[in-house]
């Protein structure tokens, strides 16, 4: 059974499912209780579960993330909301130095079953300090898991998996898409980490993305189909662990790849994708892997500039045409 729900509702449903399922699960964050959350993800939960399970915290990211790490070490399962991932820089020390490393330091004796979640990326005119995509930043550190679901069904299923995971999970939500709708399976639809999703099958070129760029790639695939080119779209969704096999299998079929990311080009996920492909599917390539990334500038405020700073359908479409050795349009 499945029902149509928004990304926001699906996300809330997963947390409710685990709140009901496991007493050690608590939600923490700024304004998530009485106010219902800045993005209304936790709307209504305070009334139902009370202040001990839905905890409002002070504006002190390093403090409350540190508290959550300690709670997790003691056996609780905190799910911490970052109002946006931009504020996590303040908590980076707790996340990187403690959450990611306690299990290692303790020789596996102490686990940190912690989820930190919140909207990632830009696109809604929040300007330079509030426009970051932090997947490669957190994906860089061993000890952290990093996921970035884009469909309502995946955001629910991956949140279930995240809460149950014994390790700290960086849960990057498509903030611009909280209101988008999709079919969501009822009940326990846990989606495993480390498995990419083929969002559309095709044979001529593979478009690889995650987060809201997946939807952009699907639109590009429609455009290319009008000219008779069948693009395969892969939604990575789990960035660490990473599903190499699915992209390698796709390249063996299509021979051409465009990797798309909202973040800046340097040291990005798309670079990692390109490296894996040249390593494992070199003999199948018909063209160099193209990367389409954000412009190398701090996120602009002005709408026209902001649009230019993110990957556009046109850019992705033309990159696909280039790897197919077709005329750009």
């Amino acid at each position, binding site marked *: 059974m499945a029902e149509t729900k928004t990304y926001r509702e699906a996300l809330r449903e997963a947390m409710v499912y685990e709140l009901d399922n496991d007493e050690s699960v608590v939600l923490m964050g700024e304004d998530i209780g009485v106010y219902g959350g800045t993005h209304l993800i936790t709307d209504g939960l305070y009334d139902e579960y009370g202040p001990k399970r839905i905890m409002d915290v002070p504006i002190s990211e390093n403090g409350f993330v540190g508290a959550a790490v300690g709670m997790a070490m003691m056996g609780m399962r905190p799910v911490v909301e970052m109002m946006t991932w931009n504020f996590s820089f303040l908590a980076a020390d707790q996340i990187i130095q403690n959450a990611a490393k306690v299990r290692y330091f303790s020789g596996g004796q102490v686990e940190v079953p912690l989820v930190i979640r919140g909207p990632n990326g830009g696109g809604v005119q929040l300007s330079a300090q509030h426009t970051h995509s932090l997947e490669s930043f957190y994906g860089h550190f061993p000890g952290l898991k990093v996921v970035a679901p884009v469909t309502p069904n995946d955001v629910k299923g991956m949140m279930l998996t995240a809460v149950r995971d014994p390790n700290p999970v960086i849960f990057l939500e498509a903030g611009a898409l909280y209101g988008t709708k999709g079919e969501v399976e009822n009940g326990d639809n846990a989606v495993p980490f480390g498995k990419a999703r083929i969002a559309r099958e095709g044979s001529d070129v593979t478009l690889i993305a995650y987060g809201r760029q997946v939807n952009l790639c699907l639109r590009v695939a429609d455009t290319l189909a009008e000219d008779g080119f069948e693009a395969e779209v892969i939604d990575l969704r789990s960035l660490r662990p990473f599903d190499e096999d699915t992209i390698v299998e796709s390249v063996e079929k299509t021979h051409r790849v465009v990797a798309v990311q909202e973040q800046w080009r340097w040291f990005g996920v798309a670079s990692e994708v390109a490296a894996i492909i040249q390593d494992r599917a070199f003999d199948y*390539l018909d063209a160099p892997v193209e990367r389409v990334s954000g412009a190398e500038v701090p996120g602009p405020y002005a709408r026209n500039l902001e649009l230019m700073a993110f990957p556009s359908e046109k850019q992705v479409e033309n990159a696909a045409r280039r790897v197919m*050795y077709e005329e750009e349009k």
Partner: protein
Amino acid sequence: MPEVIMPKMGDAMEEGTLLKWLKSEGDDVSEGDAIAEIETDKVTMELEAEDAGTLAQLIADEGQDIPVGEAIAFIQGEGEEVPERSEGGGGEAEEEAEEGGEEEGGGAQATATEAPEEEETEEAGAREADGRADGHFRASPIVRRLAEENDLDLSKIDGSGPAGRIVERDVRAAMESGTAQRAEEDGAAEEVAAPEQPQQPQAEMQGFQPARLPEPTEEPGTQLVEPTRMMQVIGERMTESKQHVPHFYATVEVKMDAAMALRKQLNEQLEDEGIKLSVNDFVMKACAVALRNYPNLNALYTTRGVELHEKVDMAMAVALEQGLITPVIRDIGSKGLSAISQESKDLATRARDGKLQPDEYQGGTITVSNMGMFGIESFTAIINPPQAAIVAVSSIERRPSYDENGEVVPGSFMKLTLSADHRIANGRDGAMYMAEVKRVLENPVMLMV
């Protein structure tokens, strides 16, 4: 340190499959120890160590296809070190190969020394796309792969990519039009170098152009079966034969009563020795006896003319679970029926077990294919190149017939159909030969002289 290489076990062999390691890394091996089981397109056999020492490094994995001449393992003698597998280390690898070659004799040496060079050229090609010895061009990796798999000459393809890069669509177009097949000289040169081997027809598979094939429907109720190595080889050779050898056919009906009576009589006599002659033994012997006056049907079509053979080396088609193989009874004309019977049974049994040695199924001069056991009234066979002829043997049918007085009497009849290469023999030769086969079988004492 000696390399263990994938041996070349037949002219047409280009690669073999490593089925199973029989020894593990670190095991001590003596000369002659079986170290692995390998499979060619024809047989499964054990690969023996040619040196003593420690099996230092297993390079190939089980199930992997390995080109002839490539190393699959190293045998480490006392005090030797395992070489690094950095493939560019040409000097050392070549020395190694030559060493192996001396021990194996001339034939294998050619293989062993050629392989590393080839590998090096390829490597160089992959490193700098535009700097190959055989012409300057750029090509994408998938293009190089397709060229290798389909034996294409990239210098004959124009690249449509940036800076003239050859891209996949260029190769696909060339494959469809057939314009980039590798030249035939290479194949011919190899054949001249090994004159004592029966000649494969020139450029065995290179003329072979598959028709444009449909994609599988993948509908429910269908199943996709990938062709085995043997199916591919049979397919290629038979296509080659049917496309390039002008077949003609001649059928005779043989009255088999006398041969059957003789067979019954002989089998009663031979029972104690455990020998039971089959009808096919009689037919093979008759085909051989009849060839005495028709040498151009016991011949091979070679690069420099038709080679007539005095001795008859008769290949017999043996059906296997997944294909067929044609082991050879050497000089069958000089052998008696009981010897032929024993040898054919032995070859057929070992053929089905996949235990034939390469020299047991290579180099026939004519082939007999028998489908009599399946109740076949008559059929035509495809010539097994480079041979001139093949005889198809059908079932014996018992039915009413007229004797010399015009009375209706029961008789046993069998149809034999010759397929012959019209470049070598004409209709008259074929017809007279088949009439002779018929005469011999109907007067089976002829088999004794």
